């Protein structure tokens, strides 16, 4: 679906992460990200046409977590603003739509969450069908392990392939100042460690992370004036699968495949991909669904296995790809975001610099 009529680019990005932040509340986590993204874009708050956030009330354990976020984003005089109870990558999608209507020319998008306040894995288990599945209290890791088992059974991949992804991600994360879990270990060393949720090891599971991220997007007119090398959104699409784990083939991701087609991933060469894989096996499923070959550099930031500030993790994938295009180290890249049990809902964004 699409490329859109108006050309829109990422012109600013900032993030903030911590393993377990006992010092700052959500507002204090968002402020530096918003300020950083604005500074990166060379824009002032009042120049922003539309503001939107993505967050999850259950992370803080109370209603309306996003309301106080307005204090960080700045909303006086009153602003055009919205919120999705989704990863902020979908907030970026809504912002892109708002620009497509012609109502606004730029948008501030932010996502945030403090996973350390509760038991993230149990909380995300409450996404399951509340009458049939949730009363059994499967955690998100339990469900991911079921998918990993189904995937290994359906393919030639083994646990050592999962460990290779974990090892590569942890090593890549060494160079990422925002990664909260880094390690220079080989796949063999990880394989020797205990399995916690068959067939997954601790190294296959994204770390609990507190954090936030903010992105500024704008039309070409603004982007070219403010930014040396804007990262243009060439295509963005998102799709959802049925949730029931028995309703879909867990070894594949049909919704990712549809979103990749809609976003036009295969319309050109892909230099880099940031994939929202919270578990090692998800990267293999997603890489296949996105149609990426082995030449593509995947998760050079270390990906979610290096830092996973839930509700901002997907938005950070877009920011990381955009940053590489803006720095000139890549020309065309794919960012992917996911949410829901076993990769239920997926968003794909293709970004590109001007030739």
């Amino acid at each position: 679906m699409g490329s859109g009529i108006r050309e829109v680019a990422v012109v600013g990005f900032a993030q903030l992460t911590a393993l377990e932040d006992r010092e700052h509340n959500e507002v204090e986590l968002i402020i530096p990200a918003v300020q950083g993204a604005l500074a990166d874009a060379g824009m002032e708050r009042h120049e922003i046409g539309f503001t939107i956030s993505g967050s999850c009330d259950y992370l803080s354990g109370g209603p309306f977590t996003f309301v106080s976020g307005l204090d960080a984003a700045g909303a006086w005089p009153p602003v055009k603003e919205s919120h999705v109870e989704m990863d902020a990558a979908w907030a970026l999608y809504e912002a892109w739509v708002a620009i497509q209507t012609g109502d606004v020319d730029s948008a501030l998008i932010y996502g945030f969450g403090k996973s350390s306040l509760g038991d993230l894995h149990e909380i995300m288990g409450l996404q399951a069908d509340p009458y049939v599945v949730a009363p059994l209290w499967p955690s998100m890791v339990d469900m991911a392990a079921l998918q990993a088992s189904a995937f290994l059974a359906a393919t030639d991949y083994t646990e050592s392939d999962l460990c290779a992804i974990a090892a590569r991600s942890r090593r890549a994360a060494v160079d990422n100042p925002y990664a909260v879990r880094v390690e220079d270990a080989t796949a063999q060393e990880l394989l020797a460690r205990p399995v916690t949720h068959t067939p997954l090891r601790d190294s296959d599971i994204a770390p609990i992370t507190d954090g936030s991220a903010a992105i500024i997007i704008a039309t070409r007119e603004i982007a070219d004036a403010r930014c040396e090398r804007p990262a243009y959104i060439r295509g963005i699409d998102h799709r959802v699968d049925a949730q029931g784990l028995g309703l879909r083939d867990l070894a594949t991701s049909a919704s990712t495949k549809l979103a990749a087609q809609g976003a036009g991933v295969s319309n050109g060469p892909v230099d880099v991909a940031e994939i929202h894989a919270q578990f090692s096996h998800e990267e293999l499923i997603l890489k296949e669904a996105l149609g990426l070959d082995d030449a593509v550099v995947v998760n050079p930031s270390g990906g979610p296995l290096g830092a996973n500030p839930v509700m901002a993790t997907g938005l950070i994938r877009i920011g990381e790809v955009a940053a590489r295009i803006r720095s000139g180290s890549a020309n065309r890249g794919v960012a992917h975001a996911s949410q829901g049990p076993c990769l239920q809902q997926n968003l794909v964004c293709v970004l590109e610099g001007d030739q």
Partner: protein
Amino acid sequence: MSALRTAVIGVGQTRHVVARHDVSIAGLVREAAEEALVDANMDWADIDAVVIGKAPDMFEGVVMPELYLADALGAVGKPMLRVHTAGSVGGSTAIVAAKLVMAGIHERVLTVAFEKQSESNATWGLTVEMPFSSPLVAGAGGYFAPLIRAYIRRSGAPTHIGHLVAVKDRLNALHNPKAHLHLPDIDLATVAESFLLWEPLRYLDVCPSSDGAMALVIGSEQVAKNATGPVAWIHGTAMRSEPTMFAGRDQVNPLAGRKCAADVYAQAGIKDPRKDFDCAEVYVPFSWYEPMWLENLGFCAEGDGWKLTEQGATAMDGDIPWNPSGGVLSSNPIGASGMIRFGEAAQQVRGRAGDYQVPLHTGLALGHAYGGGSQFFSMWVVGASQPQ
């Protein structure tokens, strides 16, 4: 560039009741969605994308429940969005859905808002003590009652004004078979004698707690022109937000509400809302919010809202009926309440409001929702005719 023409093609809603024990959340939302599809003369396969709205997830105890609802709402393989903007969410959700069409991305979007309050307890859900924050433990009524007292002090309104609204909206609801409350014997004395909850709000000044869902099918100009039934053309949409608290903020007559109204009126060419609208469906969860929003929305000068209510201007036989459907005071599935306002406004201009249909002169109606600490606003103007 300007946004593309867009219209409401179909409207559906459940009967709103205190507890729907006969259906799951999925069953509830599907009931509203199917009615909207039938009304639009469409099938599930015709829908390009689904936009879901509801208030805090704690109201049902399901994290991001739209994920579990994806198959029930025919969203599998399609784009699906979940909006949450506090009490204004029903309105915001309809606007997000409309924008997908205005942007030329989709032709037909299904949007559904719901709340199944019987699954949990909303007052509990609203009063959780948050980390790093001082506890409020007030519920919504405890939050808004001081603002109402401030309004009464400022305007000098007599104390029975709220009760007038409480009676009027419940009498309107008698003509709406889907309304939750049907109180044929209600009068001023019953409201005044009902027990005091939060000064000056008495039990009958307050909205009920409902299970219910609302669904709209929004289509492009082409889809609207091919529609088999009447459509409601969208003449304008607007959203505005401001922070909850800061020194000098006017919480009684918030600037965000005034700015939002000015924006949507400019888009729709509304000069004098009292004359230019045939009716308004406005989010009035506590009776006193009718006079307060009459002023905030520019239907009269500041301080005069209560006079319109007292004169009966907002009654069904008044010059500007407010909440002919019975409003939030008669049905309140929280996350859906805003979309019900938007949908009821559409039904009026389509001539589909049944026994609570108002006469159409300008063919224009206002849908309004607000939320948070009177800080999130969403509004749309719908009309019987295509915008010029």
